[in-house]
């Protein structure tokens, strides 16, 4: 059996249709979209067509989409620009946000720009809405950053409710949608949000490209200066094939969304039931129900075992790729800040399995059977 890839929350394999689109752009439209000659104008057409595609899918105007080098840049741009440009002195987030949000807010706190409040989360990672309301009510105009789905445990947040609450208190709401973009429909005509973010490589698009949606009700300045690109909001020659690939990937994601969602949800539910049957003492971190959790992520908590750190290693030897947490911090030996944030038992080893449309039931069967053997051998 070829290697099994169950780390799709870290990155996804690129879709062949996307790749063909990118090759096409590479070969035929190499111009700089800012050049006014024919090569440049053709490149500009590719760029604006991509923007229109993305905007159409999210039901916004193309002028509200700003392409970036990825999710981290988009998060940084929203947070830094909004806080600085609007003189925000207070921000609200959770301790289980992605580091692109958490570390950025902490850097601003350290620089003395803001004070930072952490809204409480329960043992499954759900945001305490009463606490959020308290924080909004007792502070001056806040900047709120709460992600739609946690990248490690998959717990979904009711972003519509948070949007309503933020709007009620005049807060600026940034929602990190890097894990959910292309996996759920986002109708921005209805959602009360100022910023959402996207990284193409999380839904079978290319790495190195993403976007920031900016609600027209809010004005911000650029984070990267130098050139009139992105309507003066983001300097730098556009990553044209990346952007074309992003648009194609999002188009495919929306086109096949219901079908893929049903398929992947089925795989996840199947894995849950197989694990419960076959691996004694297994539990799950975060929400696991279809309504309350991201269908691509399953965080499994294994019973306390002596050689816990051998678990991932043994899975890798068996040809199964998965993760102990976010790839962005997986090089460190520090435990997951998300699991710490939901006060999970630190002695129970946790593994994140994350799925895509390319995974199969056979792969799940193989993975569960290997997990059964490995975990019993390590106890």
């Amino acid at each position, binding site marked *: 059996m070829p*290697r099994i890839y169950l*780390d799709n929350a*870290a*990155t996804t*394999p*690129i879709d062949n249709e996307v790749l063909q689109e*990118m090759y096409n752009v*590479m070969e035929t439209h190499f*111009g*700089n979209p*800012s*050049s*006014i*000659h*024919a*090569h*440049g104008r053709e490149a500009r057409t590719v760029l604006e067509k991509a923007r229109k595609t993305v905007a159409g899918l999210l039901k916004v105007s193309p002028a509200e989409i700003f392409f*970036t*080098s*990825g999710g*981290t*840049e988009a998060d*940084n741009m929203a947070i830094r620009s909004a806080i600085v440009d609007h003189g925000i002195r207070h921000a609200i987030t959770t301790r289980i946000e992605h*580091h*692109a949000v958490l*570390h*950025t807010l*902490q*850097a601003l706190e350290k620089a003395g720009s803001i004070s930072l409040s952490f809204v409480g989360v329960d043992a499954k990672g759900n945001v305490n809405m009463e606490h959020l309301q308290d924080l909004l009510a007792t502070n001056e105009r806040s900047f709120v950053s709460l992600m739609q789905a946690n990248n490690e445990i998959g717990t979904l947040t009711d972003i519509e409710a948070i949007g309503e609450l933020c709007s009620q208190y005049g807060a600026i709401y940034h929602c990190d949608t890097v894990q959910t973009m292309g996996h759920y429909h986002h109708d921005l005509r209805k959602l009360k949000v100022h910023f959402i973010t996207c*990284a193409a*490589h999380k839904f079978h698009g*290319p*790495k*190195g*490209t993403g976007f920031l949606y900016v609600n027209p009700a809010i004005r911000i300045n650029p*984070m*990267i*200066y*130098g*050139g*009139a*690109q992105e309507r003066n909001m983001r*300097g*730098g*020659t556009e*990553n044209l*094939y*990346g952007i074309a690939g992003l648009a194609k990937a999002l188009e495919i994601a929306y086109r096949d969304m219901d079908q893929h969602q049903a398929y992947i949800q089925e795989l996840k539910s199947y894995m849950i039931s197989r694990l419960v049957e076959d691996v004694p003492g297994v539990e799950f971190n975060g929400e696991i129900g279809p309504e309350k959790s991201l269908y691509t992520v399953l965080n499994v908590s294994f019973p306390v075992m002596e050689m816990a750190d051998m678990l*991932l290693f043994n899975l*890798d030897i068996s040809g*199964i*790729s*998965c*993760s102990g947490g*976010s*790839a*962005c*911090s*997986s090089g*460190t030996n520090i435990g997951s800040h998300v699991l710490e944030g939901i006060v999970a038992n630190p002695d129970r080893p946790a593994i994140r399995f994350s799925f895509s449309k390319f995974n199969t039931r056979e792969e799940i069967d193989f993975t569960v059977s290997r997990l059964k053997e490995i975990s019993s051998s390590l106890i």
Partner: protein
Amino acid sequence: MNLPIYLDNNATTPMDPRVLDAMVPYFTQKFGNAASRNHAFGWAAEEGIDYAREQVAKLIGANEKEIIFTSGATEADNLAIKGVFEMYKEKGNHIITCVTEHKAVLDTCKHLEKAGASVTYLPVKEDGLIDLQELENAITDKTILVSIMYGNNEIGVIQPIKEIAAIAHKHGALFFTDATQAVGKIPVDVIADGIDLLAFSGHKMYGPKGVGALYVRRKNPRVKVTAQMDGGGHERGMRSGTLNVPGIVGFGKACELCRLEMAEESKRLSALRDKLEASLTTLEESYVNGNREFRLPHVANISFKYVEGEGLMMAMKDMAVSSGSACTSASLEPSYVLKSLGLSDDLAHSSIRFGLGRFTTEEEVDFAIEQTKKAVNHLRDLSPLWEMFKEGIDLDKVEWVEH
């Protein structure tokens, strides 16, 4: 020969097919996240990154640990200037740069002025070079950074980098250079040149768009920059965000190809450029902009007096050329670079930048010569100013009457 011919290689370059070949496996089989440390997909991606980092470092004589990958030169310029400003603010707030820098440097400096920076914009001489004495005079005890580009994007002029670095260091300032146009075209060595920080990008050297790097010196002195994008702590904490693995691999390959082929390629290009220039300057009242001795081998910027600029661009529709930087070409303003050399608005408007590249052929250059001559002559035939000039009227002394 395919029309229009592409002579705008300073704006962007077509990707070398060998670069794309190197990238392909990282789109398909080796698609992992380079930060995934506990499985084979992650390791394969990381291996690709490590190799590319060596290829990139080698081109500029750096150590691979000194390379920070970014989304391009603009981001690298921003990171260098803002990063130094924030990191060294205890020491001072003064930055010295120059009026002919790229917008990525100038706009960043202007932004920092609002944040408390004091910035000196050095003028340039008629040939586009800065005056070293003026640089030294501008330095104060608050100067933390000197930011001067290596090769100019519009006129190709190469600044005396080594001397500039020495002056900066003599006064305890760091030296940063935007070398986007120079790296891969001429030998650049961060050690020999005494460069502390250097920005460049892939798509100006036949690599992919959306990827670039900042060199940050680690020894003598150890230079630090404050991160401008926080997150997972990638690139040793200086630049977070999932690495663009195929882009970086392509960038690495592009650097390697430039390193291996530079000596021959620069000879070929400068010969073609000289041919173009020699032929076009046989036209009356045409002038080459910028110092011709210290210049990138592939750039020629020529002004054609008594020719209407927009008409010239229109008449040359079979050639993709530019009248200035792509980043500012959408505006109708004349080039600020040419104006700072002392050109009038009119002359700046009637200037063309010819940017030759790896895929430019002699046939194309001959075609460009013929087309340009035809266009200039045709427009002059229609021009009353040209007629007056030919009649010996000194146009500078004419008093125009408005109707």
